[in-house]
């Protein structure tokens, strides 16, 4: 047997190994991230440490659960996810990918990649995020972001960002609550960190002055810039690990020097952002932030250096990586400057990840020994669109030819009725007698022509007949339901009116006449020019209900508000129609703090009597001092501001008019109210 000790190993390429293993690279990435993490703990306190540790543990334990202790993908995982016996064997399918990833030694807890995922994921989260949310996002990151696609090497999206994107969509309010840096950081954990699992974070924490807007948010919403020093050293609000641009840059340089990171991607991203913002800032300095601010603010450094360079989810070729970087950089700039959100690095990288297979397909190096056509436009398109073969003469004819020929050849001229070929009619698709007759072989010549003529006539007759019956049906339904619908709408409106005029039991619609007087009307249809006057049981005027409309975050918002002319205040507000983001903007309908604004919202007129003395103004949550200020909701700045502006515009038009003609509404005798 001694002759068999020297076996010849036959392996596929690559044969030359650089010596870099997944373990080793991941270890160095962790080293590079540690300074920024340390700074985060110093800046945000124990909450940041708890967030980072929980994120790592959640990701690690999920991986351990999926992978099992022996290093093989757990059985239950395969059977639940695979769901069919064929998927494991079909070449090129996801099943095959699982098979390769299940190879022992290929995906072990010990390869360290999950710790990098966990650490990066933790660094993108707000420092005081409730820990149970951190756990959920971590499970999603590893389970959905990594293993559903087949584990390390097969995931199209950066797992850490998948976890964060899920949390951003699931808990938008908690994900945009940023604790102020250095605020009682080492006294203990922040109140929100230790929220009971599945419980809402304590509501008071947002209002007690502990929060700080991120530099990008304060730029977008308040046009405030942040000092370069604070920005680059990270003394700002923001995600746990993203604030210190300088330390992240340092870590990036360390990895680039050790050749564990391709410098092309971060340089392309940062360069694109710098060029775009620099040139636009030079043209219009007040509209566009300068390049230094754009580079240092938000998660750009963290994303460009550590997330976009993820080896699995970035292109293989150098040229591809530069294209990838430019794409992400432009997306970041577009989202930040023209988007509704202040920050867009996460979505930019995820979108960039989605294009990686396309980029890799388009930028393929020529196979050694073949003609290099990758640099020509033709080759580029061919790679990009594959089988469509644009520009390739042979391919174009080859792909279109047979299909076209068959289509032309198979159309028999005589049996063709209304574009349906004889062959199609001949199939007994329906039980129609006429169709069978046409399709019968042998029925050709004049008999057939006659049959065709009759068939077409009948065809029109049937469609017209059925169409007319349908029309009559619709008209009848409309005739019958129209009065009911009108009643329902009026009742809906009345409910809204009584809701914004607390204490009122009936309401009467008024319209403005040509002379500027207000007159009560009966049975008025829905129109925004109508003012509803609400009266209590004794017949005294409670207030006037008006409608206002304006542009919200997503779409137009329509609301109704009650105005009390005697006290010159807004009594209440009800949203009639809005499509604001659930969980953020739509809290204007339910947030008790926001609704508490109303009741004594001041709309007094000034001495001249033609203007509102203090137009309604929006202020940040918890900042309300004066009675004409509207306290906002954290995370719903745009919507709250829209409501304030709508109320301001509506009151500017209506309040002077209504206050002047108050006596029109006072008399209720002789008018029957609409209950």
């Amino acid at each position: 047997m001694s002759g068999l000790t020297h076996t010849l190993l036959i392996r596929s390429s690559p044969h030359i190994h650089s010596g870099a293993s997944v373990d080793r690279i991941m270890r160095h990435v962790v080293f590079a991230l540690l300074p920024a993490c340390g700074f985060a703990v110093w800046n945000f306190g124990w909450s940041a440490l708890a967030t980072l540790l929980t994120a790592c543990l959640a990701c690690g334990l999920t991986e351990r659960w999926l992978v099992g202790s022996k290093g093989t993908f757990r059985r239950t995982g395969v059977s639940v996810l695979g769901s069919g016996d064929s998927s494991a064997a079909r070449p090129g399918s996801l099943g095959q990918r699982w098979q390769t990833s299940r190879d022992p030694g290929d995906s072990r807890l010990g390869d360290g990649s999950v710790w990098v995922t966990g650490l990066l994921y933790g660094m993108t989260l707000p420092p005081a995020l409730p820990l149970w949310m951190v756990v959920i996002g971590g499970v999603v990151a590893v389970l959905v972001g990594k293993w559903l696609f087949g584990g390390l090497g097969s995931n199209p999206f950066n797992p850490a960002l998948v976890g964060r994107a899920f949390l951003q969509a699931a808990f938008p309010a908690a994900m945009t609550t940023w604790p102020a840096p250095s605020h009682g950081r080492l006294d203990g954990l922040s109140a929100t960190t230790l929220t009971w699992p599945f419980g809402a974070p304590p509501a008071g924490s947002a209002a007690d002055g502990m929060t700080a807007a991120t530099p990008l948010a304060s730029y977008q919403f308040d046009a405030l810039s942040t000092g370069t020093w604070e920005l680059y050293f990270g003394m700002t609000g923001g995600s746990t690990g993203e604030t210190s641009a300088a330390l992240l840059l340092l870590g990036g340089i360390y990895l680039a020097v050790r050749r564990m990171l391709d410098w092309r991607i971060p340089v392309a991203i940062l360069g694109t952002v710098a060029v775009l913002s620099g040139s636009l800032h030079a043209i219009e300095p007040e509209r566009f932030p300068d390049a230094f601010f754009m580079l240092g603010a938000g998660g750009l450094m963290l994303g460009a250096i550590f997330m976009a360079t993820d080896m699995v989810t970035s292109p293989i070729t150098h040229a591809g990586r530069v294209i990838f970087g430019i794409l992400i950089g432009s997306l970041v700039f577009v989202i930040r400057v023209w988007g509704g959100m202040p920050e867009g690095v996460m979505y930019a990288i995820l979108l960039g990840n989605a294009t990686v297979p396309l980029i890799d397909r388009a930028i393929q190096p020529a196979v050694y020994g073949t003609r290099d056509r990758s640099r020509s436009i033709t080759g580029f398109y061919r790679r990009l669109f594959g089988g469509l073969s644009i520009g390739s003469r042979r391919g174009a004819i080859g792909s279109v030819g047979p299909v076209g020929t068959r289509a032309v050849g198979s159309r028999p001229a005589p049996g063709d009725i209304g574009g349906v070929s004889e062959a199609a009619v001949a199939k007994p698709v329906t039980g129609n007698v006429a169709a069978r007759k046409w399709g019968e072989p042998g029925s050709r010549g004049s008999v057939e022509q006659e049959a065709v003529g009759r068939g077409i006539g009948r065809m029109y007759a049937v469609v017209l007949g059925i169409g007319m019956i349908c029309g009559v049906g619709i008209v009848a339904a409309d005739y019958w339901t129209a009065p009911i619908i009108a009643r329902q709408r009026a009742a809906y409106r009345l409910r809204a009116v009584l809701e914004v005029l607390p204490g009122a039991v009936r309401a009467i619609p008024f319209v403005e006449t040509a002379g500027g007087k207000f007159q009560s009307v009966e049975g008025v249809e829905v129109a925004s020019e109508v003012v509803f006057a609400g009266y209590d049981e004794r017949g005294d005027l409670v207030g006037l209900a008006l409608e206002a409309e304006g542009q919200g975050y997503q779409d137009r918002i329509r609301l109704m508000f009650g105005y009390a002319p005697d006290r010159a205040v807004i009594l209440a507000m009800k949203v009639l129609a809005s499509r604001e983001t659930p969980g953020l903007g739509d809290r204007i309908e339910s947030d008790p703090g926001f609704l508490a604004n109303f009741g004594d919202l001041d709309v007094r007129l000034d001495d001249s009597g033609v203007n509102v003395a203090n137009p309604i103004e929006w202020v940040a949550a918890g900042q309300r001092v004066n009675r004409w200020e509207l306290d906002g909701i954290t995370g719903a700045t745009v919507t709250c501001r829209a409501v304030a502006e709508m109320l301001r515009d509506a009151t500017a038009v209506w309040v002077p008019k209504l206050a002047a003609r108050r006596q029109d509404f006072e008399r209720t005798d002789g008018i029957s109210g609409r209950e």
Partner: protein
Amino acid sequence: MSMGAAGTQTAATDGSAVPATDEFLKGVWKQNPVFVQVLGMCPVLAVSNTATNALAMGSATMAVLVLSNLAVSCLRQVIPPQVRIVTYILIIATLVTIVDHLIQAWSVELHRALGAFISLIVVNCLILGRAEALAAHSSPLRALWDALGMGTGFLLALFCLGAVRELIGSGSLFGVSVLGPQYQGWVVMMLPPGGFFVLAGWLMLFSWVGRPAHAVAAGLPDRASELGRKA
């Protein structure tokens, strides 16, 4: 099963004598339009964010489906095959318009919540699919049973999605708080992505429960892991 007698009611113009119960249960379970056929995804993902919306949408679709199947089946001898699709769409659109008016007359709030998706029932491929695949060459009775089954299956599936999404998304069912006031809703479940997540979960469950018997007997998990070991 006491329903066996009902099975003989099937009229057999098309020659096949399928019991009515089978016709009905086929749509509910074996060929469930959402979980098995994966049809009509647009309303399934968009309006299943609360249990109430899901039930309303499911009922509206079921009503249209039953009426359109009946109408198509009754008119199947009349409609020329060349224009059958046009005619079906005409019938379906009329029914949808009427249902839309009825919902509006019933509740303004519900009509607001369902939005454009009531009108979009017209293009739900489930309805046109049943008209083309079954009602066009079956007796009205069979078409009725089929529509009832498919409609119920669609309603059930929508409710399964809507209930889970509302429970996780806002901690309530039919607008009544179930998980208490302290529960933090997962907003993503109320948004379209949540529809995909929950649908994926149900599809996974269905394909797991409904695995063919031979796959269970063969012990699929074991075979799969064997393949893994060999690789």
